């Protein structure tokens, strides 16, 4: 079935079973491999994208629900890696192996949109992504710094 999607501001048509999880559509049908597969059951956050601005785990988001919503993936977070979080991720050396980090960034970006000055508790609440390398403290520090920068 052909479905019309709006991904990173671009209208895109996909022909796939409407039950296909959005993550599979992104990676396998559209070749957008920035979004990662971790668990497939909405537990780890590696597949996080924004759906109408809300951080959403795409492995459990069916294609049939993706029509008519605005989808943003890591490829669309900024045109040239200039999102403050992306810059701070480099500055703080946040990633270790990097596998979870695209999801982590998407969750963090959605959080700052919603809560410009998040507390530690807010971060734990909304960035519940799992990092096998344990980069949590650097993630947290980078988010706080980004909040300060974006305020200024």
């Amino acid at each position, binding site marked *: 079935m052909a479905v019309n999607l709006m991904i990173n501001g671009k209208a895109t048509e996909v022909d796939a079973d409407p*039950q296909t*999880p959005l993550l599979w559509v992104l990676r396998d049908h559209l070749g957008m491999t920035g979004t990662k597969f971790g668990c*497939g*059951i*909405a*537990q780890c956050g590696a597949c996080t994208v924004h759906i109408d601005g*809300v951080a*959403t*785990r795409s492995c*459990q*988001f*069916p294609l*049939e*629900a993706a029509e008519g919503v605005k989808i943003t993936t890591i490829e669309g977070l900024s045109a040239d890696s200039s999102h403050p979080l992306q810059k701070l991720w480099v500055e703080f050396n946040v990633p270790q192996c990097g596998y979870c980090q695209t999801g982590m960034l998407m969750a963090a970006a959605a959080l700052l949109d*919603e*809560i410009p000055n998040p507390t530690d508790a*807010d971060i*734990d*609440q*909304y960035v*519940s992504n799992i990092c096998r390398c344990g980069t949590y403290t650097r993630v947290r520090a980078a988010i706080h710094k980004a909040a300060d920068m974006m305020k200024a």
Partner: protein
Amino acid sequence: MKILRIIGIIIVVGIVLFVGLAFLLNQRPSSPFDEVAAITAPQYPVEEASYVARLADCVACHSLPGEAPFSGGLPMGSPLGVMYATNITPDKATGIGNYTLADFDNAVRRGVAKDGHRLYPSMPYPSYSKMTDEDIKKLYDYFMFAVEPVAKPNQETGIPFPLNMRWPLAFWNAAFAPTKVYENKPEQSAEWNRGAYLVQGAGHCGSCHTERGLAIQEVALDDSGDAYLSGALLDGWHASNLRGNQATGLGRWSEDDIVQLLKTGRNKHATVFGTMLEAFNNSTQFMTDEDLKSIAVYLKSLPPHGADPQWTYDDATKVAFAGNDMTAPGASLYITQCSNCHGRDGLGRGALQPPLAGNPTVIGHNAESIINILLNGAGRMVVDGVPDSYRMTPFRVLLRDDQIAEIATFIRSSWGNDAPAVTAAEVAKLREDTDPTSDHVIILNMR
């Protein structure tokens, strides 16, 4: 001396009467097929024959995962002790290979085995008694000629003497098990009658969805009783209310919604779970569209049972989330653990992620199913041989009893839902009951 003689006579007469009665009660009933000559070749196309076995969902109980279909072995709990589903493959020594059509009929519709012993009513013969002669013949065809014989001896029940004597079941049968084939109601449409026939008969929906009385009998076997299909507790699940109740039954469902659930396992209101998941995997998805439509027509004709509160969506919860208001107990856990699939608006995502807002299972008075799903997740739905990619994960290891209770309470009281709170003690109990290593783990009662 005289008194002793009298007592002696009384005892002897008593024994004779008892033995005589037991003998009589072990007699095989009569079947319309008593005079039918031995059947040596299939009488129906195999698709027609196997379809009836799908309708009756024989495989669900008479098989064990990983073992030959219909070779029996599934344990079922009862207040008396554990019993095991039997081998119903056509093996002559251990299965039903020696059964004539009449023997088979007596077992399926009257609960009496070939040797005269009474079956326990975990076999839903009170429902199957409504099946037509034709459907019984097809079913016999299927088991005799389409099923592979498997030599596997039946397992003894774990029910101790004297409770394991079967003849008293004859009294149970006289009181609770009808023996009449379904009769069409002329004032109803053909579709309605077909639906009633399927639901009350082969489908034996009431085995789970109707509450049971003191003698474990279903309190109603058809729509003449207003508790029929109004939901019941079993095996750590609450089988849903299938009557017209607006909030907790099928009142807000269209006929098409019902068809969709039975055909695909999901619709915009709910998803199959628990033992219904197995009924879906093994039975309902194979039913024809016409039969599913008839079932829907029949179910939609059942009026609400008891009080009928209404449900309407309330977006207060959504608004609170939008303002990062996490004051409601469980709200914060909901955001991290649940909202990824079920959404902050509680509406799920189309048919593939079930809504929690207005979901009859979530707002039902009894929270057993919700606690069970939160602890143990949902089973694997298999459609056309393809396992499903959307499946509730178990939280038994991730969350404590009090956290699960908080989440359950939160979803039962948000988005317009208005159901009683869940306590950590309730969660602890079900956690224990569904722990395979506990010494009182629930084993399946009835399906």
